[in-house]
């Protein structure tokens, strides 16, 4: 089980309360596909991903980004039990989706950059560190059932 200090929990929960999940989720996924284009390999059914503009405007990207970040919210709600929370999703990503867990780390770092852009100075170094820990824990949990 991951140990969170009261301060870390506070940073995570209070920032999450202000996150526009649809907007940030869509932006994070779009940036992932733009900055690391090889990640597009998982989204051949999404239609036009031929340029940054196409990706940003792609409704499937935005919808899926929202879905992914909404799921992230489950981690925030279950900070003391993240591994169990993501057990089924981990199996899914391994067995059905065949996603290299490195992609979870890439998306986690992209999310951090999106949060920094949205929250500015409020995203202090200590706040960032709490969130880096969270995205790391989520990535680890999603990889946990891999075999």
């Amino acid at each position, binding site marked *: 089980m991951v140990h969170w200090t009261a301060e870390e929990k506070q940073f995570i929960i209070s920032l999450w309360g202000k996150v526009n999940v649809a907007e940030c989720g869509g932006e994070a996924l779009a940036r992932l596909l*733009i*900055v690391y284009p090889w990640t597009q390999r998982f989204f051949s059914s999404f239609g036009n991903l031929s340029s940054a503009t196409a*990706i940003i405007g792609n409704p499937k990207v935005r919808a899926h980004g929202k879905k992914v970040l909404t799921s992230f919210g489950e981690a925030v709600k279950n900070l003391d039990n993240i591994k169990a929370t993501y057990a089924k999703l981990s199996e899914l990503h391994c067995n059905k989706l065949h996603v290299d867990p490195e992609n979870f780390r890439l998306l986690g770092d992209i999310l*951090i950059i999106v949060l*920094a852009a949205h929250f*500015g100075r409020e995203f202090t*170094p*200590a706040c960032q560190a709490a969130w*880096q820990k969270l995205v790391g824990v989520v990535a680890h949990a999603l990889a946990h059932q891999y075999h």
Partner: protein
Amino acid sequence: MGLTACDKTNVKAVWVKVGGHLEDYGAETLERMFTSYPQTKTYFPHFDLHHGSAQIRAHGKKVLGALGEAVSHIDDLATALSKLSDLHAQNLRVDPVNFKLLSHSFLVVVALHFPSVLTPEVHVSLDKFLVAVSTVLTSKYR
């Protein structure tokens, strides 16, 4: 693929903003790296690592200054960074994994202070540039 003409333009656009405050942004980059990735502090046992430390400010200015030099000579990074590459290989021997951590911390600083500058297109250019610099700096390791 390497850096396209577009990448180079994008990176220079970032430097227009960053260039005037190397000490501030350099210190913040290092502070964020030390806070999020405590293992990076192992390279600085001789430093005062408290917030606002003069050593961190000086070192941050040095690091971003070097990056700025790289931006000025973006068409030939290998030559521009040759001495620094020797230094990292022979003296500093910073494990290659840490260049990603520093690069990420710098991207966070740019996103935080200049969100409208770090569009997705500029983001990928800056990321590619930082990877290229990191590659040069570790190229003589073995």
